[in-house]
């Protein structure tokens, strides 16, 4: 009897060979990996144009082996619209944090969805502003301490967390809007499937697609990488329920 060696997993094609600047254990990296894997599987790398945000993922373009542009803070959906309208046959996606998408970029994301722009949005919800050093985000949990809510978010003064997936699912232009989490293997697998469906939505011209991903920020949460994942499971999921908020009928039939 001979034995053959099977390659179970290797680094995706759509990645460059660059060491990322993300903090150890930050699940921005997982989100990146899933996007790269999906684009590999769909064979879209050479057709794709990514739009990087301003946020910790500002350098995303260093890590993906594909054309990329760098948007102004919050404006990625507008920039993606500008691109997609003149290059309708390209795959265009934005990658945005919660400050970028839900705070300064609220108008742009809402209207991109309302217009039914055929773009895919990967929305990283880590309940905080990572890049600038841990200020409050619109998604920050009530009572959560940040550098701009030092006593914990006081909902009376600073308001309540915004649930973007629920809100955007109200817009008729949206074809696929779901929330997933990156805190363990099972959820990571579900997240990947969702990202696949988002790009399938775009491929089929079914309108705007967004995958909201609950993601960790060990550094600004001041937790270890693993503790941060537990924080997602225990603290974030209850406030941001995982689930499908809008799924275009055509997609339901789809097997991926």
């Amino acid at each position: 009897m001979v034995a053959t060696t099977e390659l179970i997993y290797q680094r995706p094609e759509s990645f460059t060979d660059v060491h990322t600047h993300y903090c150890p254990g930050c699940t921005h990296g997982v989100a990146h990996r899933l996007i790269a894997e999906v684009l590999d599987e769909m064979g879209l790398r050479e057709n794709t144009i990514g739009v990087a945000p301003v946020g910790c993922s500002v350098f995303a373009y260093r890590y993906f082996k594909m054309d990329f542009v760098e948007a102004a803070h919050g404006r990625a959906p507008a920039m993606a619209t500008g691109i997609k309208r003149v290059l309708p046959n390209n795959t265009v996606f934005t990658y945005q944090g919660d400050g970028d998408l839900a705070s300064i970029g609220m108008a742009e994301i809402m209207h991109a969805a309302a217009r039914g722009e055929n773009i895919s949005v990967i929305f990283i919800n880590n309940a905080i502003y990572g890049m600038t050093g841990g200020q409050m985000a619109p998604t920050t949990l009530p009572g959560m301490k940040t550098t701009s809510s030092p006593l914990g978010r006081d909902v009376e003064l600073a308001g309540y967390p915004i649930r973007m997936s629920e809100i955007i699912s109200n817009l008729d232009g949206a074809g696929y809007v779901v929330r997933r989490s990156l805190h363990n293997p099972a959820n990571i697998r579900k997240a990947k499937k969702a990202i696949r469906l988002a790009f399938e939505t775009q491929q089929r011209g079914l309108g705007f697609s967004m995958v909201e991903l609950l993601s960790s920020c060990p550094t600004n949460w001041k937790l270890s990488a693993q503790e941060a994942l537990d924080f997602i499971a225990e603290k974030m999921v209850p406030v941001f329920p995982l689930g499908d908020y809008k799924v275009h009928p055509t997609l339901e039939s789809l097997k991926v």
Partner: protein
Amino acid sequence: MEETSIIISGFGGQGTLFAGQVLAYASMEHGLEVTWIPSYGPEMRGGTAHCTVIVSEEPIGSPLVRNPDVVLALNLPSVDKYEDIIKENGVLVANSSLFNRQITRQEINSLLIPANKIAEEIGMSRLGNMIMVGAMLAMKPILPLDVVKKSLEEHIPERHK
């Protein structure tokens, strides 16, 4: 005493910025002019953090300097980065706990001390940075040691006590 420029450099977690602040507080207490300026930006970028401290009897113009009088290098990258730009006859104190190479420049006064090791021995593993400061003051007494000690005690974060 005329203007003395000091750069303290090391990994993010090594307390380089704090060491500089202790010097700055001490200088102020001692009635000197002083500026402290960090390398700033999102910590998460990792890599080395450094700060520049300028101590003087006169009002300080530039808070930045090209060729520092003194460099405290808490890790190897810092030694590599600063060894060549130290002023002639300047001082280099390097933390030999994190590397083992010789200092090539001869005309500067260099001192290698195993700061981490010493700090652990005296049971204050977090204070490697201050060990370096102490060593520096021994070589270049710009401030009395007790003044620095005092400002350390006053400003050290609770959790480090």
